[in-house]
């Protein structure tokens, strides 16, 4: 049973844009194993990483924020920069949100300041919709935080 999780936003640009949906998800799974994250596995003979992938993009279409929800065994503070080396340059993560899963929770900084979000299992979309926030506003600010080297300790925002 997972109590913590990560939502990682990946870029799907360059060569990655030409990967099929199945191959893209496969690559992200491999990258997560390479990063040695405390991921959970499915049960059964063919064990696979437990993750929820975003809806498929058409082949050749680029995206700067494909969100993957990854339940984990234990809490881990990790940044997009740290994860970058485990993925090819095209599919590097641009933002990592770590949160407790019960309740689903995360923190964003938007132009209006830091806000708390209750997260659905699927990730951010529904929570953002309810608060009438544009996902890109949050993601863009997140990218800026990462590029400026600013870090936010998420633990004290979690209830």
């Amino acid at each position: 049973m997972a109590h913590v999780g990560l939502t990682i936003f990946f870029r799907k640009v360059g060569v990655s844009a030409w990967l099929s949906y199945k191959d893209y998800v496969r690559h992200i799974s491999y990258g997560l194993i390479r990063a040695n994250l405390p991921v959970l596995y499915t049960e059964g003979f063919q064990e696979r990483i437990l993750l929820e992938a975003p809806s498929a993009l058409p082949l050749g279409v680029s995206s700067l924020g494909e969100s993957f929800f990854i339940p984990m065994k234990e809490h881990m503070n990790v940044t997009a920069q740290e994860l970058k080396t485990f993925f090819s340059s095209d599919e590097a993560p641009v933002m990592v949100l770590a949160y407790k899963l019960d309740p689903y929770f995360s923190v964003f900084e938007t132009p209006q300041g830091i806000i708390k979000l209750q997260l659905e299992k699927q990730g951010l979309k529904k929570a953002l919709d309810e608060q009438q926030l544009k996902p890109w506003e949050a993601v863009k600010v997140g990218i800026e935080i990462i590029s400026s080297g600013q870090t936010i300790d998420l633990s004290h925002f979690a209830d």
Partner: protein
Amino acid sequence: MFILSNADLYSVEKPSRYLGGEFNSVVKNWEETPYKVALLYPDLYEVGMSYHGLQLFYFLINQQKHLLAERVFAPALDMRELIKEKDLPLWSLENKKPLYSFDVIAVHFLTELAATNVLETLSLGQVPLLASERTEDDPYVIAGGPAISNPSFFEPFLDAVFIGEADDIIVDLLTFLAKAKQEHTDRNNTLSKLAQRFPGIYVPILRNSPEEHHVLRDNIFYPTKFIVPNVEAVQERAVVELARGCTRGCHFCHASSYYRPVRETPPQEVVELVRTIKQTTGFTEVGLLSLSTFDYSRLSDVVDYLSGEHLNMSLPSLRLDSLDTDLLNKVDPTKHLTLTFAPEAGSDKLRKKLNKPFTNEEIFSAVDLLAKNGWSKFKFYFMVGLPEESDQDVLDIATLLNEADSIAFKNNRRSRVHATVASFVPKPFTPFQWERQITPAEALEKYTLIQEHLKKQVDVSFRNPWFSLLEGVLSRSDSKVANLVLQAWKEGAIFDTSEQYGQHFLWQSAWEKLGLDPMEYLRARDPKEPLPWDHIKVGPSKDFLLLQREKSRKGLLTPDCRECCLGCGVCGGDLWPTLA
């Protein structure tokens, strides 16, 4: 560098096959690296990326500062049309450089049926097809791999052939060529010196006598990472060579001759390699590569060490004389896998002539035991047209399958028995190299005989006998067959490895135009008759092969050479069977 437009990429299937940029791929500076090698795998990207040897040489060569290795695959038919339409040369995946701009093209020949694909890729890469037409500015085309051990069918297109394993010699060989390039040594002179310096090199224009090169266990190169393919490979897994070579000596097996002697990797090293490869690739499926995995002396240790690490292990065919259900339970606790057996023949008598010692009774006991333990999917491999085979032997295949199905069903009502039946192809450098190969018409008769006597529950697929005919013609070819390959390619033959693409009417037309009779190549050869591959030394001596052939005829078994040296002539010096 040239780049396809988005519109071009949209127009082809699986465009990421042609883009490179994979995780772990090595892109070196083209201008600053003095000597450049294209590793050409003459099949689709996802097939070539499954091949362990390609990745082995890729990382081995790229470790060297003065060398660069890049991959080139055969494009699918849609991309081939696009390349031709746009008049682009076939390019490498790393620096996107045309094939003709490399110094060496190293062709991986794993099956003779790839011959037309090699011509196609060279042609698309704008490399002159005939070695005699290449100039000082053209790359050297050097082939290697088990299917080119008799290179007669492809000699005019190759500058050189490497006979044997090249792990410990490839860097020296390329450095030698790089030096020749630096010194502006002319082409023929370079090839002549190459053959003198490296005994495993065969240069067709010199018609020299090469000797197969073997690698000592300590010199085998084990890659610690693999390129993670853009498109899921046919077999995408962390591959570790558990052992190279096999000592069973089945008389039909070419690999048994080519890869002698057995050299087992120590178990700690296997485990360490699996863990490292998982870390560097993310692969969770493990392929323990060997010709006979269940003969590996420390398999149980390896499986024990790797348990609980979220790894899925794939299993090759089971040896009935070393069946270990405890081990199988550890590898496949959910009883999910299909267990495969390769009895090859339906009767004990004929199987003994192949040097396979187990009986039908042992097969039935094994199926019974495994079905009782929960396994429900079984697969069998058979051949028809084996030397001294009778109709009864063929019927025995159906009888064996029917009985195996009944036993499996008795234990488990969900059980399924599958089988694949192919027509036997005699291979050079094996004890059966002199035997007759049956015609496609005879193979079809035998297939029908089996089909008529099978229970309908047993699912059997029959290999198209036309592919066996072509494989037989190419593998025991003489120099006339090279013209046939060229003519067939001109007629449009390509992807002969695949039943989906293979168009045998093109080959039919080619041999009619050249006045060649393919049946001539299926005939039995007299042991006193000179063979087209006699000048090449691969595997056991000819005397040993003749002795094995005699033993086969008398139904006498040859023991495993781990037990005692059989004097096949391969070992010597530091090269001996090396166990883990």
